[in-house]
């Protein structure tokens, strides 16, 4: 997508004015140039803060989501929030936030792919994939991720949807990703709990020992793999001369990833010499989860997939607990997911089908139940994290767990008044247990700015952000 040509660069504006004084704030200067601008890493004291995102597709039943009262939860929660009743003291309900830049295009892909970027995707059937910008989790990972083994993890539960959605002429690629390490590089979700677990927690090679005959991968020290990557970089540079520019861009994608892994290997090598302090209770929990993964089926026939979801949430929890990473996303499903939820009493059929409730009472009721199931899974993770002691508080106190969908009502597909929950105290800077009603039309990106600063990254602005959400602190 070509950039609008009327955007004035700061330099051009300066030249035009012929002065070097502070610039007046020109509207035309606001958009892309300031995307995630001027990040400054702020060193924090105390335990690290974690940021987890639990994304679910297809929105919510709009009538049974928002608490009627603002402030502390004194009366009962709306139906879809009931499953978080016992952890509500740890959760904020945020209303009236919206994601303005995805308020065009189709009902799902534009919304979901920009949930964490707050930008506009390029509509395409395959060529010129572009999400408009880096997602907030990846911006944080890029600046803060070097303190842990992995800068971030991307988890999911549903295999990626394929091909083009011809109804709207958009590649389904957009439906499978909320994490974007650059505007043009989506990060795939790990949907196999075994793979996710081993990558995070296992040194060397996974389960069966037979494979380690001959040259075992453990025999290759990080030095060896580093020499492999060094050589590959040299080879790639030579290869570039043989390629046209479009191919070079594709090769750059590869080189960026190789460099990333190389850098991380060097860091790991350095870190491995320092003693690593991990909560002994977390070390005990690892083999338990390992065993659970071994004994839980894959759940690929539309049956109740709660156990598979719980495994992924447990993996995220342990990743945070052991400080293996501080940033994680989890997708309950791809955009337009039609996953069958008939395992819930009173639900007949698929998620997307229910979300198009057409104000039919039966469908609305089923829709609410499906959302409530998602909230229940979220509440499970919130509760477990609140039970883990860390420093003078809990793991949850040192976290921010965002739960949300990129559209409100699946029948209307609007990215206004998004259904959002935020759990945890962000290291003691957030006062949960309330409903915060933001000013109508507050950008979702304002929340991302607030999350970023609590993680230790100060952003002048992010996407369409235009201010703070001071109410978070209480």
């Amino acid at each position, binding site marked *: 997508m070509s950039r609008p040509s009327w955007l004035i660069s700061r330099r051009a504006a300066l030249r035009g004015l012929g002065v070097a004084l502070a610039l007046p704030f020109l509207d035309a200067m606001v958009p892309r140039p300031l995307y995630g601008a001027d990040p400054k890493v702020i060193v924090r004291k105390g335990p690290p803060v974690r940021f987890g995102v639990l994304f679910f597709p297809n929105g919510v039943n709009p009538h049974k989501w928002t608490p009627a009262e603002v402030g502390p939860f004194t009366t009962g929660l709306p139906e879809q929030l009931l499953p978080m009743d016992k952890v509500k003291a740890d959760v904020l309900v945020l209303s009236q936030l919206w994601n303005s830049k995805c308020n065009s295009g*189709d009902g799902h892909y534009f919304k979901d792919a920009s949930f964490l970027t707050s930008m506009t995707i390029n509509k*395409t*059937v*395959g060529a010129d*994939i572009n999400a408009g910008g880096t997602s907030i989790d990846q911006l944080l990972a890029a600046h803060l991720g070097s303190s842990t083994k992995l800068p971030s993890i991307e988890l999911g539960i549903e*295999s*990626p949807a*394929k*091909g083009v959605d*011809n109804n709207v*002429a958009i590649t389904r*690629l957009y*439906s499978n*990703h909320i994490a974007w390490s650059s505007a043009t*590089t*989506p*990060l*795939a*979700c790990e949907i196999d709990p075994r793979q996710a677990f081993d*990558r995070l927690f296992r040194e060397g090679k996974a389960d069966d020992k037979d*494979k380690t*005959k*001959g*040259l075992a*991968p453990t*025999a290759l020290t990080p030095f*060896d793999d580093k*020499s*492999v990557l060094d*050589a*590959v970089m*040299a*080879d*790639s540079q030579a*290869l570039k*001369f*043989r*390629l*046209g*520019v479009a191919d*070079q861009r*594709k*090769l750059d994608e*590869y080189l960026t*990833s190789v460099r990333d*892994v190389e850098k*991380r290997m060097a860091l790991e090598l350095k870190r491995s010499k320092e003693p690593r302090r991990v909560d002994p209770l977390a070390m005990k929990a690892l083999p338990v989860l390992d065993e659970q993964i071994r004994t839980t089926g*894959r*759940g690929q*026939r*539309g*049956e109740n997939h709660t156990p598979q979801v719980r495994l992924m949430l447990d993996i995220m929890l342990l990743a945070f607990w052991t400080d293996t990473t501080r940033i994680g996303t989890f997708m309950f499903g791809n955009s337009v997911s*039609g*996953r*069958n939820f*008939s395992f819930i009493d009173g639900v*007949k*059929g698929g998620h997307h089908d229910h979300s198009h409730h*057409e104000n*039919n009472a039966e469908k609305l009721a089923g829709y609410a139940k499906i959302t409530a199931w998602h909230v229940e899974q979220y509440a499970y993770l919130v509760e477990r994290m609140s039970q883990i002691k860390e420093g003078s508080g809990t793991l949850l106190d040192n976290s921010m767990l965002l739960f949300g969908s990129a559209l409100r009502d699946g029948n209307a597909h609007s990215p206004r008044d998004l259904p959002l929950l935020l759990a945890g105290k962000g290291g003691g800077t957030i006062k949960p247990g309330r409903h915060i009603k933001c000013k109508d039309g507050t950008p979702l990106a304002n929340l991302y700015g607030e999350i970023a600063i609590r993680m230790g990254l100060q952003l002048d602005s992010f996407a369409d952000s235009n201010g703070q959400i001071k109410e978070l602190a209480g």
Partner: protein
Amino acid sequence: MQPRLLSIIALMGFWLPASTAEDPARLTFDSDIKPLMTALCYDCHGEKKAKGGIDLQKFADKRAIQRGALQWQEVQRAVSEREMPPDSAKRQPTEAERERLSSWIAHALDTLDPADFPKDPGHVVLHRLTRVEYNNTIRDLLGVDNKPADTFPEDAGGGGGFDNNADTLFVPPVMVEKMLTSLGDVLGLAKPETLFTHKPVDDKPKSQRAAAKAILSDFTQKAFRRPVKDPEVERFAKVYDAAVKKTINHEDAVKLSLKTVLVSPSFLYRIEGQRPDAKPYEISQHEMAVRLSYFLWATMPDAELFKLADEGKLHEPAVIEAQVTRMLKDPKAKSLGSIFVPQWLKTEELRRGRKAPDSGKYPAYNDRMRDAMCDEPEVFFNELVAKNRSILDLIDSDYLYVNEDLAKIYDISGVRGNEFREVKRPDDKRGGVLTMAGVLTVTSHPHRTSPVLRGVWVLEQIFNSHPPPPPPNVPALDDKKEGDKKDLTLRQRLEKHREDPTCATCHARIDPLGFALQHYDLMGGWRARDEFGSPIDANGALINGEKFSGVGELRKVLMTRKAEFARGVTSRLLSFALGRGLEFYDRPTVNELMKGLDQNGYKIQPLIVGIAKSFPFRYKRNQPVSSPQEVSQ
């Protein structure tokens, strides 16, 4: 940018028989289109004002529009998808006007003269091996079949219809990690004689180095699927040197250098060298071998293809034909069925569990049943290829491939065991892909069948034509007064739905196709009553009034439109072969392939040969080359 033209055309042909709906071929620009554009478009996109720099008024006739195809396919899309005119426009078109405009532009573009445009083999970037291709290539290169790529993140989902679309294949950091780990495994599992093709004559470092270099020279040629010159081999030999210096023994040092070869982009990507020609150029011999083998086998070329490429024979049409025929006989050609078919027919959604019948209500749908349902179309297609049958068998065949589980659903007796076998069909309830259990299941909701989903499937998968999205704020199917709908059958409710002219534009075309399949339940079994207890009424009529009842007659109707079906299949297969979506400049290629199909009795092997010999398959678009300075930055 929008590879939808071909399909839109297929749609027009199928959707708009001239008798009742408007035939765009009979409309003229001056009397039918220009007045519409004047009322709807020119105010903002005309001589006086050209919003976004777009002036449509300067295109004074059909020919001008055809020559501006690149811009007008965007116009067509914006109109068809209701992006234009915007909500703020003074006047909105009626549904009929919108369709007249959109179908006329589509028709104009479809009938453009390819001679007006330079021949273009299309946009294809470096093609990362898909997970399946990676596994197969490792298998054929090293004899290790442990599927290392299964640990990689899933391929992103593709575009242009298939997951081998080069633009949508990425290499995230996690994939680099997993490659490093899994290649350690692979090299550990490979037989020593596969790896150490040259033995040092003695234990002296110099001899060992020479052997390592010889091994690398052999190995890089195979792994990179092209000739490799000495300086390149030497770069990998340096890894060996560094390892030996670190006191790693000879064999492990060789393995480390081989691992480097496998991590290198020349292995991971299908790389086609750029030439600074101004025009599209024919790809090299080895690049042709690679395109052929990944199209038909989803793996690297074998010794014979390598040899022919070395000898410079792979540009000869007769050689290409002989090679395709040979390759289709190889068991590796089964990848066509297992990769192309599930994505085309959408059974992949069942296989991967994104769709499934409700497990409580349909306990018969277990893992084995799911696999049988997904296997059937793949087996059918592979046999079609192996036996060089007509692609029209996909619409209607008097034979089926079943195993015991499927035979039960199809009411066929005497079939035991899991193996698939060919059987004669007992009656016309079965035959072709329309009535396959997997297809009928994937086009159902988890708890009920859906004539709409099935109708859309027929249009999209069989005719490669795509109904436009529904207009916003449609009065919903269920959103009528409670009293109305209680006593109505699903058919009656859908008929009511079609009384609304906004809905009728599409649903009059979608629903009847689906109703012809109403006799099949959610898992593809035959039924006399639907899930609401209503007796099945499988009557339908095309928009031109052509009537049919049940699947047998529907097939006959479809057969009278076999050319449209053939165009759909051809377009899909070509898109799969090229690893990209089709564009308007591919039309001459598709036309030529269609001509071939007609001459060869619709047999599939000549079609595949035709694709392999086609212009976009053998040529590459020239890309701008940047200067070395730019590259090194």
